């Protein structure tokens, strides 16, 4: 990879990232992760987080606002992750913890995706280099065939032709586009969907999973409800029955009649 790990300064300097080509938070984050040779799930994430946040701070007011914002979003996610690391291990009960886990999954997914595209970009560069050495045949038609060419149909009026010229010569200014893509706030909350599932089961006592997600508007909600069921199972308030592998999944409410 050209963009990430190789060009990072050796260990002694506490924070010095010299990337060949540095274009954004994902570059920096992958660079830091590579520098510490760590799995992104390991404990040293806190260290990466500190360095990343220090970098964000240095970007300061001088930087391009959009770029700084994107760094801040990633930094905030990392802070959440660091906070989660400081909590006692094992128990994930608090709803904030759940939010942190969701944020982590999202950030990891983005990093993996970003890395995959960087690798593809490298193969593109290689292909382009190879292809540069091949030149297509594109030559003038031999005169004897050029004479045979049918006369070109040119049925435009001068005004229509002028219109094409205006359209072609007019500069096309880039249209600003407002994106919310960098805001990772999940539209579907596992916590809310857990409540939805619990309410349904408490009333009906037993339901199939199919029925529980029948009104889910999208896959994300279905997934959130499934995760909610796992929460409820951990809390010991639901049980599962499935007669055959991949068969209908029945969910029973085994908790009390009222909440809490």
């Amino acid at each position: 990879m050209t963009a990430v790990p190789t060009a990072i300064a050796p260990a002694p300097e506490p924070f010095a990232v010299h990337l060949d080509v540095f274009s954004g938070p994902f570059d920096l984050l992958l660079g830091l992760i590579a520098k510490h040779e760590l799995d992104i799930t390991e404990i040293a994430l806190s260290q990466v987080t500190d360095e990343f946040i220090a970098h964000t701070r240095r970007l300061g007011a001088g930087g391009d606002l959009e770029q700084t914002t994107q760094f801040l979003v990633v930094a905030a996610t990392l802070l959440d992750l660091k906070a989660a690391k400081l909590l006692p291990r094992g128990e994930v009960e608090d709803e904030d913890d759940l939010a942190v886990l969701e944020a982590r999954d999202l950030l990891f997914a983005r990093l993996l995706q970003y890395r995959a595209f960087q690798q593809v970009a490298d193969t593109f560069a290689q292909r382009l280099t190879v292809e540069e050495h091949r030149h297509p045949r594109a030559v003038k038609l031999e005169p004897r065939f050029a004479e045979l060419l049918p006369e070109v149909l040119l049925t435009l009026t001068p005004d229509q032709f002028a219109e094409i010229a205006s359209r072609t010569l007019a500069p096309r200014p880039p249209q600003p586009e407002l994106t919310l893509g960098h805001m990772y706030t999940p539209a579907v909350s596992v916590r809310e969907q857990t409540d939805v599932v619990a309410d349904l089961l408490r009333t009906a006592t037993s339901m199939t999973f199919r029925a529980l997600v029948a009104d889910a508007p999208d896959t994300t909600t279905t997934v959130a409800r499934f995760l909610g069921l796992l929460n409820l199972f951990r809390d010991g308030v639901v049980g599962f029955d499935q007669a055959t592998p991949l068969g209908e999944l029945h969910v029973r409410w085994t908790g009390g009649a009222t909440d809490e």
Partner: protein
Amino acid sequence: MNDLAVTAERLALRPALEAVLMVADEPLDHVTLAGVVEGPPAVVLDTLHEMASSYDHEERGFELRSVAGGWRYYTRARYASAVERFVLDGQHARLTPAALETLAVVAYRQPISRGRVSAVRGVNVDGVIRTLVTRGLVEEAGTDAETGAVLYRTTGYFCERLGLSSLEELPAIAPLLPDVASFDLQMQEELELS
């Protein structure tokens, strides 16, 4: 038709195909070629493949390749130094890593808006997309029905420059993404949509 007759038919088609490909200045698909040389498309296609491999075998200075959906004569890469002493075109300026990454995202997620490319790359890509459009590698492809954002896709020239017969020849990206990621990816895309 027996094998001998098929061979004879191919032998008759080969020089006619060579003649037509010699005057073409863009890739021609085998159906168009079949119409011009008046042969069955399937036999024409076989003949084209045979021609390509015999040029390779005979170590010709040119090769016949199927690129961007059509067949066309190209010079063989091994003789690039002689060819480039002759044709000096400066149009092959290198793309920056940022441009290559953006091109990769567009290629695998097309049609896609600039906003979505930005989300994947983590930076604003407006300038880079403009460069790719200017280079003829990417073009506009209508607008998103919901958001009204302009969508982008790769061009035929992109396939040509990468030596791809079609987009289906793009290397698979899945092996580069661990299993977990495909789920997360889908999740993320839906979150972004919402």
